[in-house]
């Protein structure tokens, strides 16, 4: 059993199976929009509990991919431990450590997905200008002013919204929301998605808290650092 988790063959075949499952998934996603549409709107575990588990004929590939990723995670951990425990020489330190840095980065990214899938929250809704709305974690948001920039033909070129964030009814942060420019406070992000003027100025906002985001960033940085180091070391070799 230990050898199974340590085997490179396990990693290779798991990757092959994952490739096939993601390929199937890429066709299933657009074919069954009612099942997969809410997948990005809420925490993934909520979707799994409320939707995916009731539509197994359409979501089996997702559960199989999840099992494949768990196997790949175990395999990566076992192989990395085995490699780190081997005999080390000063001369090949970087060559031996850089693939493990890549593996740790990959594991951090998987951990980020796990944390983001099960914890935190995602809420979205239309908020009129001047409105005040309570948020989770004893927070509240006031949307003070919506601003739109137009070109000479009157087309919208950019937009923003002034917002104030309150914690236990005390103002804790003022800021300007815009495309690619959310307002962050203690891990919660407030995103301006779009505007609507049908019944007066209003903004479609997303309030999201993802405890995995920092792990994803750390994983991405480690993966990139390990890859660049490995590239530099392996570039001249055949």
């Amino acid at each position: 059993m230990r050898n199974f988790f340590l085997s490179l063959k396990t990693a290779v075949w798991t990757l092959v199976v994952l490739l096939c499952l993601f390929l199937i998934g890429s066709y299933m996603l657009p074919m069954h929009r009612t099942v997969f549409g809410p997948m990005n709107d809420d925490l993934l575990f909520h979707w799994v509990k409320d939707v995916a588990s009731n539509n197994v004929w359409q979501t089996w590939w997702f559960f199989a991919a999840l099992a494949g990723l768990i196997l790949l995670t175990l395999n990566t951990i076992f192989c990395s431990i085995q490699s780190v425990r081997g005999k080390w020489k000063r001369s090949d330190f970087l060559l031996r450590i850089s693939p493990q840095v890549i593996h740790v980065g990959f594991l951090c990214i998987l951990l980020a997905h796990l944390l983001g899938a099960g914890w935190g929250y995602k809420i979205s809704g239309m908020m009129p200008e001047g409105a005040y709305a309570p948020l989770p974690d004893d927070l509240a948001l006031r949307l003070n002013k919506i601003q739109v920039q137009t070109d000479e033909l009157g087309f919208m070129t950019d937009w923003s919204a002034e917002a104030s964030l309150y914690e236990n009814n005390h103002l804790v942060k003022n800021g300007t929301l815009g495309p690619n420019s959310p307002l962050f406070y203690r891990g919660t992000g407030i995103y301006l998605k779009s505007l609507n003027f049908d019944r007066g100025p209003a903004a479609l906002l997303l309030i999201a808290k993802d405890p995995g985001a920092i792990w994803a960033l750390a994983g991405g940085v480690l993966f990139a650092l390990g890859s660049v180091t490995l590239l530099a070391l392996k570039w001249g070799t055949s």
Partner: protein
Amino acid sequence: MPFVSLSMTILLFILYLLAFYRLWLMLPALTLHAVLIVSIAIQYGRIPLIGLHETLGFLAFTIGAVAVISGWKRKRDLFSYITIPFILILLAGSIASPAMPGALPPVLKTLWFELHVILSFVSYALFSIGAVFGVLSLLYNEAPAENNQYRSLLLGYVLFSTAMVFGGIWAYFAWGTYWLWTPKELWTTIVWFYYSLYLHARLVRGWTGPKVVWMGIIGFVIVMFTYVGVGLLMKSSHEF
């Protein structure tokens, strides 16, 4: 406004054709191509990497640049006979695709997006040239060609991974998440896993010869489907 005027397009085609004789003769074509890309960037006030029209042109340019660097000393051979027609096909595809003039949508106005797409297309170019070296290796049984394929794919993988990290940062700032369940993201993961598989086979298992060479060639097909096929056939956050 079209990406390039007709006369410039014809001139660009002719200059690329010159490279059939000697690969370094592609330099004038790449210079003109770079000037055209920069002029469009100045005209629109953004990087010209929106839609198939602009991205196919940019991919043709990056493949040309990678081909010149990796095949600088090559004379007229199969490397040119594969690479140059491919560049011309991409250019033709670019011209046939509708242009998307004007400024960037606000959500794309960020350095993270620019780094994400530029690195993605440079990695696509490296994967393409890797496949060309793979064909040379299979047909002529050239050891240096196989090694060149490996180096192209290794560099392509590192840049592709970095592009995905930048894409994740951009998505987090734009949409509040670094991952969306869409066909494009799934295919991007397929590409990532596939080249991880290639590198594990090559570096850890020590595979050499036709098996890994074929893996490099098949990888190119997957990359092209991820770039063009998914965008055209499947609804995604990366629609063209």
